[in-house]
């Protein structure tokens, strides 16, 4: 088995979506099964910008030219479920060919958990504000019926020692 065949088998076996594009023509040269399952319209020869219309191709070109990786995110709905895919583009050379390597990971669960934590935080913050408001009202009420010194003692120790007060 040639090295190229081994590499191709490895790319097919990994759990992330992998696709290779020609860096000049921006056409799909290879896609593993995970990538093909997510992006069903990705046939060999498909155009990168057509596959991902929201992709900032100018920024991609600029970033890859400096040898850095370019990150993006793509969302789509499949049977009422939102799938969020994180994309990382890097450039690579295979023999005398220059390619764009696109690595995709499904981060839907992470985004769902983030949404849940945000929802929960909002609830807790609202409750905290309400508790604070009620605390201030109770404080005002107590200061109406007892001297501040007695109130401070009550707040610090939970009880007030009886003492004679002059009216």
């Amino acid at each position, binding site marked *: 088995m040639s090295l190229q065949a081994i590499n191709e088998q490895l790319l097919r076996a990994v759990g992330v979506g992998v696709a290779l594009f020609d860096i000049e023509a921006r056409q799909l040269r290879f896609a593993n099964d995970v990538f093909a399952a997510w992006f069903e319209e990705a046939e060999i020869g498909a155009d990168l910008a057509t596959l991902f219309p929201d992709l900032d191709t100018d920024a991609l070109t600029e970033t890859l030219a400096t040898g850095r990786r370019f990150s993006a995110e793509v969302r789509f709905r499949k*049977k*009422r*479920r*939102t799938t969020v895919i994180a994309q990382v583009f890097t450039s690579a050379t295979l023999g005398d060919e220059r390619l764009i390597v696109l690595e995709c990971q499904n981060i839907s*669960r992470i*985004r*769902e*958990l983030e*949404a*849940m*934590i*945000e*929802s*929960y935080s909002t*609830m*807790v913050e609202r*409750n905290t504000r309400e508790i604070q408001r009620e605390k201030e009202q109770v404080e005002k009420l107590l200061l109406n019926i007892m001297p501040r010194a007695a109130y401070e003692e009550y707040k610090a120790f939970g009880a007030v020692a009886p003492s004679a007060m002059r009216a």
Partner: protein
Amino acid sequence: MPGQNLYEKYGGFAQINRIVMAFYDALLDSDEIGPYFDDVDMVRLIDHQTKFVAALMGGPAQFDDEHLHRAHARLAITDTHFDEMKAILAETLDAHGMASEDIETVLGAIEMRRRVVVAQPAMS
């Protein structure tokens, strides 16, 4: 522990988040009521589920009847779909180790809102 509500008894948000995610998955997978969520944004749906489950279990969320009615008024929800939602929630709570008497408490709290959620037939 006496005085604990179900939310505290089952470990607060650290544990309840698993119930929320499992309930969310089961609702989307349901052929009966999944279609209600065809066009609902993921963030909005998770926000709703988080508050719904927390409120039912005594957590830091309040769902008044007016809010529930407004959220469901246009969906034309039937009694069958309401029963399906209850069954899915009961299965989810059971799968996460909730005691049967506590599941009954939660289902009782939902049942009290049936008339608020299910579309009422128009008076002729």
